[in-house]
């Protein structure tokens, strides 16, 4: 057994991964710059105008940044960190760092100063890119305790014109240094590009460790090249495709989808103006391929659900009718069979009366497909998008396998499952039911953390920490995080995320955490959807002043209980929620309870709200 496993491991490792004849990301990037100088690579909306950047612009900007770093002393294998909201400079700096042979680590702009300090020290960051004043101040606050940090480079100098600090320079100044360096060393850039090796680490992605501090996953050129191939296999992306870039680039999903996949497919990436303008920007771009996290889809659904509350009776009736027709059509679409004529006729009416408008409103009208991952999603929600006429495919993966490991694809899709293993990747279950992954996407390990590496990647098999099952047709289902499985005092195993997903499907519930480990029954903590619950309270004439008092009104409690009862009816008796409490503080991503994607962190919630939880037992 051991011997065959080792053999298989060697064969995956020796597999040559090439995209367009290139075996490193640096090489592939530069090939696109040279071959497609005039094709638009990026667009960024600034003050309401979409500015275009061709591959030649992209290459030039990245090259100047990269050479600037080299002039300042960047050696191959040195780590640089970027703390910024998504913008073109993020992308330029990223490719500059990678092209120069450095390793690029993304920092969430919502991270607080202590986290920044940890990340700089743990990753041995030498060069730190800060978006603006705000990001700069965080690093200035901690730089006394980050001895390895050499230079801070600032993208946006607004309000910093008078800054006089030998450790800080602007991004423009860095590029000027790069330009001068290029004049003296014209061959340097292409030499560095050529020096990259497939197994060189090029990206560090810190994973929000629920146990212990975050760990830096080391992603190599080869890992990422493989992932671009996988994305092409799964999604069939063409050079004419338009993507909307709005998820954080510090996250693996954003990085692979907005930065690296377009190097394979040459699709166009449209960077939103700000996170507040995403809805409008999406309507304007109407992306032809669209990937988002469940929270975004939940918001889109809630958007329509709430609009419907203000609709006329006829409006509601037509919506219900059109969605029922859409759902019927979707069954044919899923099975790739042509629908019968009468259904096509009804579908035509439904499309023009309702569905088209919904899709335009959501900005998904031109999307060939929608894709979701990074968190569990309610199957009902996926069905809803299918009924709107847009196929939605759930995919699954982790930072530690550079993104995707399994996917539902057109013509081979089962809702509720995460699909089957992507080409080149193997998936199996351990004896405990844990999902194990092996393939060219699996990382070499965690940065400076051999202990964690050894416990996570065993004989080439990545231990995901997710419990799953595989059905007779090979579709894989995720049950929950291994450590999140609840065993009630009665000895019943319960997978909380299944219940939580159903709860989140309610327009009034933003997130929920089910509790009940070693307890007689299940309870949950609920974070309400502020906008929708506020609207409910207004409509029902419930007096309240602010978020806290809103949570304490009887009507809101009744409303949430009704939603919970609805979910309860779908589960067995031992799996029903008996009591709940609302989290009466309005949380934002800077709070430790929330992930940057606004999900509640189970562990933190369990500790921080222990009193509230105890009050239910």
């Amino acid at each position, binding site marked *: 057994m051991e011997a065959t496993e080792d053999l298989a491991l060697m064969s995956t490792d020796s597999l040559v991964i090439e995209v367009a004849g290139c075996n490193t990301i640096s090489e592939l990037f530069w090939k696109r710059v040279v071959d497609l100088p005039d094709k638009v690579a990026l667009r960024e909306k600034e003050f309401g105008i979409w500015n275009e950047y061709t591959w030649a612009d992209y290459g030039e900007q990245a090259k100047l940044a990269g050479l600037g770093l080299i002039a300042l002393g960047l050696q191959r294998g040195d780590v640089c960190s970027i703390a910024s909201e998504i913008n073109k400079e993020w992308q330029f700096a990223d490719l500059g760092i990678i092209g120069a042979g450095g390793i690029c680590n993304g920092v969430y702009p919502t991270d607080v100063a202590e986290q920044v300090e940890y990340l700089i020290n743990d990753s041995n960051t030498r060069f730190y890119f800060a978006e603006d*004043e*705000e990001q700069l101040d965080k690093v200035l606050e901690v730089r006394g305790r980050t001895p390895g940090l050499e230079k801070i480079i600032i993208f946006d100098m607004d309000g910093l014109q008078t800054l006089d600090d030998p450790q800080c320079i602007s991004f423009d100044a860095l590029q000027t240094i790069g330009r001068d360096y290029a004049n003296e060393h014209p061959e340097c850039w292409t030499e560095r590009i050529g020096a990259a090796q497939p197994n060189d680490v090029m990206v560090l992605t810190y994973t929000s460790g629920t146990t212990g501090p975050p760990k830096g996953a080391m992603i190599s050129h080869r890992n990422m090249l493989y992932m671009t191939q996988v994305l092409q296999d799964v999604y069939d992306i063409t050079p004419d495709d338009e993507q909307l870039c709005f998820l954080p680039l510090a996250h693996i999903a954003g990085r692979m989808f907005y930065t690296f996949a377009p190097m394979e497919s040459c699709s166009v990436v449209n960077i939103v103006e700000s996170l507040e303008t995403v809805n409008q920007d999406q309507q304007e771009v109407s992306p032809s391929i669209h990937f988002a996290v469940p929270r975004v889809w939940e918001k889109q659904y809630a958007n329509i659900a709430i609009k419907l509350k203000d609709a006329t009776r006829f409006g509601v009736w037509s919506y219900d009718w059109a969605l029922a027709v859409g759902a019927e059509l979707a069954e044919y679409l899923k099975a790739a069979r042509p629908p019968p004529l009468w259904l096509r006729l009804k579908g035509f009416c439904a499309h023009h009366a309702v569905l088209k408008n919904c899709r335009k409103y959501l900005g998904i009208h031109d999307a060939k497909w929608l894709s979701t991952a990074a968190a569990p999603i309610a199957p009902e929600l996926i069905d809803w998008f299918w009924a709107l006429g847009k196929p939605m495919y759930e995919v699954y993966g982790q930072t530690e396998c550079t993104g995707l490991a399994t996917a539902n694809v057109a013509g081979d899709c089962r809702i509720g499952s995460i699909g089957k293993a992507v080409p080149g990747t193997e998936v199996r279950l351990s004896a405990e039911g844990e999902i194990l992954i092996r393939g060219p996407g699996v990382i070499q390990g965690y940065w400076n953390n051999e202990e964690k590496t050894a416990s996570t990647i065993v004989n080439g098999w990545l231990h995901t920490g997710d419990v799953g099952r595989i059905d007779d047709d090979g579709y894989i289902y995720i049950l929950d995080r291994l450590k999140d499985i609840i065993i009630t005092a009665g000895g019943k195993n319960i997978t909380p995320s299944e219940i939580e997903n159903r709860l989140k499907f309610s327009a009034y519930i933003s997130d929920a955490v089910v509790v009940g480990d070693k307890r007689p029954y299940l309870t949950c903590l609920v974070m309400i959807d502020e906008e929708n619950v506020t609207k409910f*309270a207004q409509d029902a*004439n419930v*007096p309240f002043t602010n978020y806290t008092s809103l949570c304490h009104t009887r009507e809101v409690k009744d409303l949430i209980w009704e939603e919970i009862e609805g979910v309860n009816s779908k589960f067995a008796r031992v799996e029903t929620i008996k009591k709940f409490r609302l989290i009466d503080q*309005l949380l*934002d991503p800077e709070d430790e309870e929330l992930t940057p994607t606004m999900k509640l962190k189970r562990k933190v919630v369990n500790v921080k709200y222990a009193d509230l939880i105890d009050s239910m037992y």
Partner: protein
Amino acid sequence: MAGSLIVKNIETYYGPIMAIRGVSLEVRAGQIVTLLGANGAGKTTVLKTISGAMEPQKGSVDLDGEPIVNLDPDVIARRGIAHVPEGREVFPFLSVEENLLMGAYSRKDKGVRNDLHAVYDYFPVLLEKRAQAAGFLSGGQQQMLAIGRALMLAPRIMLLDEPSLGLSPKYVAEIASIITRLNQERGITVLLVEQNVKVALDISEYGYVMENGRIVMEDTTERLKQATDIQEFYLGMKDEGVRGGRRWKQRKTWR
């Protein structure tokens, strides 16, 4: 004389624009309560809705337990709510005394003379200028006149809309102390809208903060003064940061 006010879920529109998106607040009899917020937050609209100058689409306003919403402004004034509008709005061509007597227009009781003297006691400068046209008064004196005129209604509640607007610091302090005295000596309940947050927090016991037509925070003024968002966004107290001269703002959390 009581004078409690309960506002529940009011929604008020300017044409198609929703200015108040569901505001509930409570002013107990004998309290001074302040309503804070940036320009355009909807503070003035709340006062106008209470005094009947605007009708809400929705919601209720109760004065001492009786609904007053959708009553005409003059009826509401007769019930004992005096609204001192932003920008004073004195009658410029009437004399000071005529202005004051206009405040008692709806009263038929014999106390009017007494109240007139009381107003002159509070604002001796008005006595000095009683025969002058109100338009010739300074801004601070006009503000006193506007408050005095409201006082002539013998109100249960006074709604004060930015009484410190455009006044010199000396007048601001004086007006503030008079508001406190009116509240303590005459038992008048006060709902105060102010841009001068420091003064407002000093003289009132409870406060609400509005933003974009909604209340985002409420608490005793003691606690509001300690809240970091109030300190940074309303009191201009901010940590200068490591560099000095920090310009970016924290995200507001309102806790």
